[in-house]
């Protein structure tokens, strides 16, 4: 078991191009499940590959278990990686695939067989599958073999690069919880890359949000949701995404859809000190409460997406004409074309600097 540390780790693919990973500082605690999440091109996979030793560093260093491994070859880092496409050796059987790393370490045959069996049992892999070739397996089985190949090695750190993205939706949700549960049981430090924020929120002890090669915020899922540090994190975490509207500052708050949304004094002071005349207002869809005419924010329902338990309302706001999404109870949502009003709690409103994107905190 070990902790993992990125210290201003930087990777530049081409001279003159912006760094794929820009001075990344990240501390993964021993036994922690850390998720790197971000849109494509954010550098999350590059960061993982730097940790694996598949990508050289152009600056900074990487540590595993307080040992500087920046220049250590991948096989000596005591890590195991699960690839997005699994990268199973097509000509080897499942057992050979899982035991290959042990064979390279000259582990005796009996011991190898024992550990392969043990891993197969952990993953509920049928013993009969061990003699099959990967192409004779289903997608879900291949995924588990790829996991098994990592588990067999009993490494200090698991690296997982979007291991669920090739599974169908139902299997993905099922495997998601299995992996998280397995990681908790084994207690092995895990760095997990995904572009899916739901995966990130449900699996990670902590989640590191990356964009354009830079770490935006690293915190627990709850904190990312409740206290995003900037507009990017606010918009990225949460589904459906937070409504972000550029609105003018007024006396006591901001003007939105014919009403004034009050903001704390501290926020207003900070905004005026920064010389801002407008700011970006963020309200999550679940914080727009339908108010049967008694609310302040008025608009017209354009579209209703029924999800069963609840419904998503696409609403055109009264004066600006901008669209927002609101989450309503699924039983009797308003019909398209209906005029509605919403209420929000002052605590549920976020304010961001429209220039820098930084949160203006109260």
């Amino acid at each position, binding site marked *: 078991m070990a902790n993992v540390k990125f210290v201003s780790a930087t990777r530049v693919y081409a001279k003159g191009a912006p760094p794929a990973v820009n001075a990344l500082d990240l501390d993964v605690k021993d036994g922690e499940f850390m998720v790197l999440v971000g849109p494509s091109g954010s550098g999350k996979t590059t960061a993982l590959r730097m940790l*694996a*030793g*598949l990508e050289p560093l152009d600056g900074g260093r990487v540590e595993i278990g307080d040992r500087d491994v920046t220049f250590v*070859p*991948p*096989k000596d880092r005591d*890590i*195991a*990686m699960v*690839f*997005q*496409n*699994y*990268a*199973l*050796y*097509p*000509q*080897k059987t499942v057992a050979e695939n899982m035991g*290959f*790393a042990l064979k*390279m*370490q000259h582990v005796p045959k009996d011991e190898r067989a024992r550990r392969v069996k043990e891993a197969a049992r952990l993953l509920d892999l049928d013993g009969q599958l061990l003699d099959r*070739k*990967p*192409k*004779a*397996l289903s*997608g879900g089985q*291949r995924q588990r073999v790829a996991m098994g*190949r990592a588990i067999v090695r009993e490494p200090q750190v698991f690296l997982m690069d979007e291991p669920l993205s*090739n599974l169908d939706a139902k299997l993905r949700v099922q495997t998601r919880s299995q992996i998280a549960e397995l990681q908790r049981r084994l207690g092995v430090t895990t760095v997990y890359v995904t572009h899916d924020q739901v995966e990130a929120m449900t699996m990670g002890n902590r989640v590191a949000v990356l964009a354009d090669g830079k770490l935006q915020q690293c915190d627990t899922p709850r904190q990312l949701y409740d206290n995003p540090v900037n507009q990017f994190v606010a918009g990225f975490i949460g589904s459906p995404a937070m409504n972000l509207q550029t609105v003018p500052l007024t006396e006591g708050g901001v003007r939105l859809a014919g009403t004034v949304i009050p903001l704390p004094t501290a926020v207003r002071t900070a905004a005026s000190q920064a010389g801002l005349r407008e700011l970006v207002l963020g309200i999550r869809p679940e914080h727009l409460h339908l108010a049967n005419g008694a609310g302040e924010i008025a608009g017209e329902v354009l579209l209703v997406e029924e999800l069963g338990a609840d419904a998503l309302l696409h609403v055109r706001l009264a004066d600006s004409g901008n669209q927002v999404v609101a989450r309503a109870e699924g039983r009797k949502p308003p019909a398209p074309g209906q005029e509605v009003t919403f209420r929000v709690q002052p605590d549920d409103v976020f304010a961001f600097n429209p220039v820098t994107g930084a949160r203006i905190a109260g």
Partner: protein
Amino acid sequence: MSASAVPMRAREPGPQRFREMAGNVGWGVLAWVVGIAFFLPVLWMVLTAFKPESAAQTWPPKFIFSPTLSQFRLVFSGWGPFVTHSVIATTVSTLLVLLLGVPAAYALSVHPVPHWRDGLFFFISTKMLPIVAVIGPLYVIALKAHLLDSIWLLIILYTAMNLPLAIWMIRSFMLEVPRELLEAARLDGAGRIREITGVILPVISPGLVSTALICVIFAWNELFLALNLTITNAATMPMFLISSVPQEGLYLAHLSAAAVVASVPVILVGWIAQRSLVRGLSMGAIK
């Protein structure tokens, strides 16, 4: 045959359906005509090989005759040394090509050496010069090295002749090996040798088979070098065909029988290789 294939949207029976069928028949007939046109000389060769020499020369050619194996008997009485030389030169040179080609292709694809583009271009550039242009120097070198009329000379030359093409082919197969597979091997602790023998070669084996097949065909059928640099000690099957043409007298049936015998090994190797070529390049590796 002038009718063209009609799109599949016609559902109701009628003139359109009829035109569609006529179109299909037309294409079918065309395919057969072209196929037979290509195959006719081969058929003629095979038929002629079973004729007595006197019947082989008639015009128009006879298709009904009493077949004889006498020409084949004649061929098999004299082909011994030639086929031995051909088998040795072809198999040894092909094995050498694979042995040298695999590491060379690896160094030009998976872990490219500096200036790998130049290396790649150099290999193919050796094929740009017509071989006639260097036969003089080759002859002199072979003479000085005491390799004239030696099977070793043919092995060296056939290896050199096939190596550039083989490197290009094997390289393209290696480029198709999924990068993650090689990275997984690196993480699993496989060294360079293990990476090649344990991961790359099994994946590209169908490609290696097709490469070997092409090398075998080229080496087996090579005539120019054999003709100019060998006489008896290393003469190959194409030389045997030439020697089947006597100074005088009838020879067409005999030559046909010799040609049939010379073609059979290549066809056989091709047929065997075809079965392993069908297997996908890296099925099961991805997803």
